[in-house]
């Protein structure tokens, strides 16, 4: 019957022979089976620590597990054979596949699940594939946590065409143009791509780490090519078409761990390995994205709700056993079985799953609510993602948060600014959480592997708050820190609605700025802090400390002005660290005491007007971040003025140079009395001079 079906198809096809693309797809199918390798674990830990409980591929995006999106998409692209490569949580993945429609006999796509517990990276997975020799021809390499609607066959075709021109082509990477200022590009994936525009060959691939301002492009890259394109407007879809030569390449080079390693290694050793990489730009109507962290989670959810991923939108019946959603105005998707209380308001961009009940006077906007949830009365949910079977008590306020499966929230709970509740958390009433991660039980050391930087604080029977362990935390783990507290769900404070979306795009920019301390200077800062703390405790001579600071300056290659800035900053933060200087007077007392020892250090660094500017800058930064300093700022200025560290005109200049933003004007207001006094003193002295 199957044969009948396909011959029937062929008759149809020949009837409409003019459709070129479809014909080519047909011939492609006849040549051989289209294989796709799906790496189910992304190995990056963007959803950490949720991934202790469920694999990243089963994280629901708009109430559908990511893996379903990936598989549906591959099926839509007529992929016939899929190799699922799992490492952690393999049993859950297998169970999921077993229950899905792909397991039915009538399914057109064959799925093979491969498990390798020891697999730690993409490189390991590819080496394993090579060892098992399951790859027969060109294959499509994707991750298990992707959302897309790209037709992959034309890309495969393109890859084969390239192979005819260039024997060495091993990989075609797929990119999508994404405009600046939109949140769809993951911060991990920012890269500048240098390509030969005539052939589409990738010449250079520069990862842009947070804070990177410049890249180097060697002269020889564009000396051979007549035309070189530099692209920084691309969203890495993480889709790649690979030649069968790729797994052996991974086997030969043990240092290839990630795809970036692979790309870099290949580009660097192009002559030796004889392999080339090309790129493919998706046309406008196609979409693909890799949901690798919470930022991407949010932006992909947004794109699904805004229908960029059509046909994978909630109201289309692409998951067969789920009743399709009803699509209403203002991007509200809800299922028929949803019960809405009197006076509840569904504003816009909302998805509500089946059998969920929403209480009276509840206000929901920009959010996704899973199935079988129970939401109480007078609840506000804004920009949040509530998974299945969640119970939310009355009067809760949830903004920019993720609430995992089966969680229970008592009445009056407030979750703000990127809080994440892992599945199964039970929060008692009236708890306020701000940018915290809460898990349902203590994480065992075995589970947490090498990520031992958390401290756990018990909030309730089934709620443990994860905190950064200050003692073990050092600057090398800054990435880790970001994972914990960044969370991207509206990191910049203030959840007023008018700011809503701007806040999103702004959070991207602030992320560039918020952790702007590039590695070396940050290391330098912590070094200075160490020296000063030690010096203070052991009563070392200031000259020795200056020597120490200067030597670390050379070690970390920090500019003079940065040194001034950081030294002042370190001095200012010293009292906070050393004692419990929790109020402004106490802080000032402490600082005064310290200054007796450290005045020579200040005098040594803050010599000229530039340095004084840096000093003031440091003061301002510290004051805007710490409350105690904020309150005592004018006193502090006075003190420094009296000690002849800061000159009057520099202070005045600083005072008049404020930005428009609220914090700096608030600061200026705070010090206004002192400035007033300065002015008066100045006039008085003038007068006395004239007298």
């Amino acid at each position, binding site marked *: *019957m*199957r044969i009948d*079906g396909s011959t*029937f*198809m062929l008759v*149809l*096809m020949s009837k409409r022979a003019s459709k070129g693309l*479809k014909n080519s797809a047909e011939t492609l199918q006849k040549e051989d089976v289209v294989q796709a390798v799906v790496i189910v674990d992304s190995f990056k830990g963007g959803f950490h620590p949720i991934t202790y409980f469920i694999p990243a591929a089963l994280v629901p995006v708009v109430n559908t597990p990511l893996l379903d999106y990936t598989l549906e998409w591959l*099926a*839509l692209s*007529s992929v016939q054979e899929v190799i699922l490569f799992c490492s952690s949580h393999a049993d859950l993945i297998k169970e999921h596949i077993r229950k899905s429609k792909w397991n*039915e*006999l*009538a*399914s*057109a796509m064959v799925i093979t699940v491969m498990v390798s517990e020891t697999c730690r990276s993409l490189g390991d997975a590819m080496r394993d594939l090579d060892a098992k020799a399951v790859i027969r021809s060109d294959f499509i390499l994707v991750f298990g946590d992707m959302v897309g*609607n790209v037709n992959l066959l034309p890309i495969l075709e393109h890859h084969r065409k390239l192979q005819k021109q260039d024997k060495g082509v091993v990989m075609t990477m797929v990119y*999508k*143009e*994404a*405009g*600046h*200022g*939109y*949140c769809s590009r993951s911060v991990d994936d920012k890269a500048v791509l240098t390509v030969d525009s005539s052939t589409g060959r990738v010449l250079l691939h520069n990862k842009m780490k947070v804070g990177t301002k410049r890249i180097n492009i060697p002269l020889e890259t564009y000396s051979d090519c007549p035309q070189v394109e530099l692209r920084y*407007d691309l969203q890495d879809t993480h889709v790649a078409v690979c030649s069968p030569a790729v797994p052996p390449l991974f086997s030969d080079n043990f240092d290839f761990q990630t795809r970036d390693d692979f790309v870099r290694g290949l580009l660097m050793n192009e002559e030796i390995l004889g392999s080339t990489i090309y790129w493919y730009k998706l046309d*406008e*109507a196609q*979409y693909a994205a890799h949901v690798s962290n919470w930022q991407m989670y949010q932006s992909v959810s*947004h794109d699904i709700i*805004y*229908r*960029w*991923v*059509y*046909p994978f*939108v909630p109201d289309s*019946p*692409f998951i*067969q056993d789920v009743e*399709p959603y*009803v*699509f*209403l*105005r*203002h*991007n509200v998707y809800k299922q028929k079985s949803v019960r809405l209380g009197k006076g509840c308001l569904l504003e*816009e961009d909302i998805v509500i799953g089946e059998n969920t009940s929403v209480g009276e006077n509840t206000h929901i906007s920009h959010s996704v609510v899973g199935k079988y949830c129970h939401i109480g009365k007078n609840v506000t949910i804004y920009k949040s993602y509530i998974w299945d079977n969640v119970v939310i008590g009355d009067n809760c306020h949830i903004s920019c948060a993720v609430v995992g499966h089966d969680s229970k929230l008592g009445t009056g709970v407030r979750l703000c600014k990127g809080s994440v509740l892992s599945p199964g958390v039970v929060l008692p009433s009236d708890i306020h959480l701000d940018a915290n991660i809460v898990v349902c039980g203590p994480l065992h050391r075995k589970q947490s592997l090498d990520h031992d930087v958390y401290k756990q604080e018990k909030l309730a029977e089934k709620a443990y708050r994860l905190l950064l362990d200050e003692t073990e935390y050092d600057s090398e783990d800054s990435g880790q820190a970001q994972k914990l507290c960044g969370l991207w769900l509206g990191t910049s404070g203030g959840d007023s609605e008018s700011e809503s*979306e701007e806040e*999103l*795009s702004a959070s991207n920019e602030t992320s560039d700025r918020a952790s702007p301390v590039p590695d070396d200077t940050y290391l330098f800062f912590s070094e200075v802090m160490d020296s000063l703390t030690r010096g203070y405790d052991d009563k070392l001579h200031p000259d020795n400390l200056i020597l120490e600071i200067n030597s670390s300056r050379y070690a970390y290659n920090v500019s003079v002005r940065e040194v001034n800035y950081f030294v002042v900053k370190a001095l200012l933060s010293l009292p906070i660290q050393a004692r419990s200087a929790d109020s402004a007077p106490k802080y000032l007392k402490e600082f005064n005491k310290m200054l007796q020892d450290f005045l020579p250090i200040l005098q040594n660094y803050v010599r000229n007007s530039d340095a004084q500017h840096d000093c003031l800058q440091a003061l301002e930064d510290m004051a805007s971040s710490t409350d105690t300093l904020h309150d005592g700022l004018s006193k502090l200025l006075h003190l420094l003025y009296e000690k002849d560290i800061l000159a009057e005109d520099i202070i005045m200049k600083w005072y008049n140079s404020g930005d428009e933003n609220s914090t700096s004007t608030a600061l200026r207001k705070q010090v206004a009395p002192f400035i007033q006094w300065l002015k008066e003193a100045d006039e008085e002295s003038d007068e006395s001079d004239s007298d």
Partner: protein
Amino acid sequence: MAKNSNKTEENRNKFINDIKQGKVWGSYDIAFNTVNLLKDVIVNGDWQTAQELMVLITAEGRKLTRSLPMQASVGNMVRRVLKIIREEYVATQQNKQEDVDAQESLHKIVTSEGDVVDDYSKLLPDLRSSIMEHIGEFEMELETSADNIAQQARQHIHSNEIIMTLGKSASVEAFLKKAATERKFEVIVAECAPFCRGHELAVSLGKSKIETTVIADSAIFAIMSRVNKVIIGTHTVMANGGLRAVCGSHIVALAAKHYSVPVIVLAPMYKLSPQYLCSYDQDAFNSFVSPEGVLKYSDGAILSKVHVYNPVFDYVPPELVTLFISNTGGHAPSYVYRLLSELYHPDDHDL
């Protein structure tokens, strides 16, 4: 037996996938394939009586329409096949009785209401073959429907007329080409953004030596005063005679109303649906695709600030339609209800 149902399921999945992947396109192909699927159920399915068969077909139809809610012709075909089964059942049963009294008097027809209500549960030996025969005839009707419509072209298009159409409809294309063999006339094609299928139609008409002009959608009203007739295709004809047609049809119809230009809609019988438009909101009527054609993804920051909708269909109310041309001839929108009762059995309206 399990093997058979598996095969049916496999075929159904393949059909659904083909539609989703865009391999099967156009309502004729979809209708044709649906009938084939249903034939498969009739031939291989496990049934004894007409009632059992109807349950099977309805179940199959429900699965299909759930997976393809936007393809009204799938549901129409299921209803049509159900009607055929009912007719054949009654006919074969009557044949049996007719052996007893061959005469059918007017009196009998009028008073026969009582035994029309039947549960279709009698065993009739040659039901399967007669149903298949009837479906064969129906398939013939399907195949010739496009041709039948085109044959009527010369009655509606006269020399030196200016015809407006929009987008690309296979029936309109055939209709115009047929008319062009005998008469000389001019065609204005609205491009029908953002999909711009009008361009394809214009190219195709140009190749057939028809004088064709492509206009932007915004120029429809301005041009309408010069147009003699609007001829459009449709996706579905609703039960009240309204249209679910490609986005832009409503403007064309409104502009035509303003200038009193007749609007002729080409709709083969398989596009007639017993569904009504229940609300002017989008639920279950329209389909919204990716906003790509309206706003580019690469436009950046603005994307998160605006809602962009890209609807595929328009609802055109029946009072804006002058005439339907189906394979059986021309009908006024007010006559659609009558056609529906001929085509489908009222019990099958809800699958």
